[in-house]
């Protein structure tokens, strides 16, 4: 019981990070119908910007302020990355054959990894735990369930970010424009929506969310390298598909589920096969629900 509770806490923390990345995949897929394979690398760059800012500010400002600065600066710069990636690698190919932007995305992903590898080095980079300690939720048979301050901070930040994001998408003119372009880009243009600009904004927002996930990943694990984007990217992509690609709540739900599966599998079976467990469950879900857990399946008149 206590052990399960511990896996739940760990799984939810990891799941929130996946969820934040997955939102970016699903947004881009929704609006231009492509899988942005470079998204995981934006997450990785976000983590690197985080470590640079945190290192630069350490000793100068208080820790919470430093972390907040890392989140904001990383989000802003990665927003710029996302904007540029779309401009350089995808927009020129719009209207081209379907696989073209996909190939371009893979190229962009390799480019970003190599760029970070050469500029930041191929070795792992580490930071100490900046928010040590925590609270003990319960004790049972000599096992103490720990909820660390770091986990609380990560969950709190994710919830705030997702709340703001949800508000933007559901209630503001910008969010409406994004959804309109997703549903019928030509009609949106007929109503005066600058679709290119809306697509750029989508990339900026998605990349900013991935950047914040990157910073939190850095804080949680304390170690990053230029290759973390690959694994986390595939997990988050899986989360988006599991939740139903194109569905924003689905992306968050999928992220949480994958975090939980990983945590429980590692806790009860073996760490070695945790990825296999994730993909097996994805395969099973898709067999019964081909459009994912919250994917669209209602009938619509067109």
């Amino acid at each position, binding site marked *: 019981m206590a052990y399960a509770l511990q896996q739940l806490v760990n799984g939810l923390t990891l799941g929130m990070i996946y969820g934040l990345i997955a939102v970016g995949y699903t947004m881009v897929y929704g609006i231009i119908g492509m899988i942005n394979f470079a998204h995981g690398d934006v997450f990785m760059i976000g983590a690197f910007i985080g470590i640079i800012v945190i290192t630069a500010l350490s000793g100068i400002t208080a820790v919470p302020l430093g972390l907040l600065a890392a989140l904001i600066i990383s989000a802003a710069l990665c927003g710029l990355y996302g904007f540029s990636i779309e401009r350089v690698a995808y927009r020129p190919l719009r209207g081209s054959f379907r696989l073209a932007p996909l190939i371009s995305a893979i190229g962009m992903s390799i480019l970003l990894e190599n760029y970070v590898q050469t500029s930041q080095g191929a070795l792992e980079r580490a930071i100490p735990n900046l928010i040590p300690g925590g609270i003990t939720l319960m004790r049972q048979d000599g096992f103490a369930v720990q909820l660390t301050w770091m986990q609380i901070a990560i969950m709190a930040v994710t919830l705030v970010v997702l709340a703001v994001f949800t508000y933007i998408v559901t209630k503001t003119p910008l969010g409406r424009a994004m959804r309109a372009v997703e549903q019928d880009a*030509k009609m949106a*243009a007929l*109503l*005066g929506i600058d679709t290119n600009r809306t697509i750029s904004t989508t990339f900026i927002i998605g990349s900013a969310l991935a950047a914040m996930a990157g910073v939190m990943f850095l804080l949680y694990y304390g170690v990053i390298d230029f290759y973390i984007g690959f694994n986390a990217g595939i997990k988050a992509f899986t989360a988006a598909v599991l939740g139903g690609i194109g569905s924003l709540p689905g992306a968050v739900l999928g992220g949480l589920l994958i975090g939980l599966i990983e945590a429980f599998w590692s806790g009860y079976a073996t760490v070695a096969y945790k990825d296999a467990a994730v993909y097996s469950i994805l395969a099973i879900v898709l067999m019964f629900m081909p459009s994912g857990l919250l994917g669209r399946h*209602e009938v619509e*008149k067109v």
Partner: protein
Amino acid sequence: MSNVLSIQNISTFYGPIQALRDVSLEVNEGEIVTLIGANGAGKSTLMMTIFGQPRAKSGAILYRGENITALPTFQIARRGIAQSPEGRRVFPRMSVEENLLMGAQVVKYADYDSQLKMVLELFPRLEERFAQRAGTLSGGEQQMLAIGRALMSKPKLLLLDEPSLGLAPLVIKQIFGAIRSLNRETGLTVLLVEQNANQALRLAHRGYVLVNGALTMAGTGAELLAKPEIRAAYLEGGH
């Protein structure tokens, strides 16, 4: 009368297929102009070419004297042209309210309340369905929503592509009545595509006939209504 829309010798293609051949047409301030023609004549193509979707391959489109032929679609909309397009194209996963808000996006919501009041008075049905997802509306309700959405931007030129499609005769009458009164009271300029040639020609000040992508006839509504070839081609079994 000042010129609102001047289409000059445009030709439009879908790949190798030519859909419009050297079409020229004028719409003046305060006019209701109708475009009639058989299925596949190119009426919807003309309406969409005005918005650059697809772009005219040759010729020019002038809106109040400004050449808009090469403008991005959203810029054309922001000049004050609105369209209720063929196929309605409501946003299926948005509520009726959100669809209407989308229509008002151009006017930056300044006149949102007054426009909304006008649209809901015209289509009380939309008020009943205000929170419903547009994709689940009936065909006729979607048509009302598409027209309402176009009106929300307080357009100076309104393009209506078969607004009567799928609507009950009573509602058609209502819509045509509304177009007439908007035109009389606010001077709204309208370009109207209709299958229902009889009613359209009665409503319109002038009309054009499109055959196989080319204009073959033009005249006042009454003139066209009186022409035997029009009666034979578009009005038989008419009301």
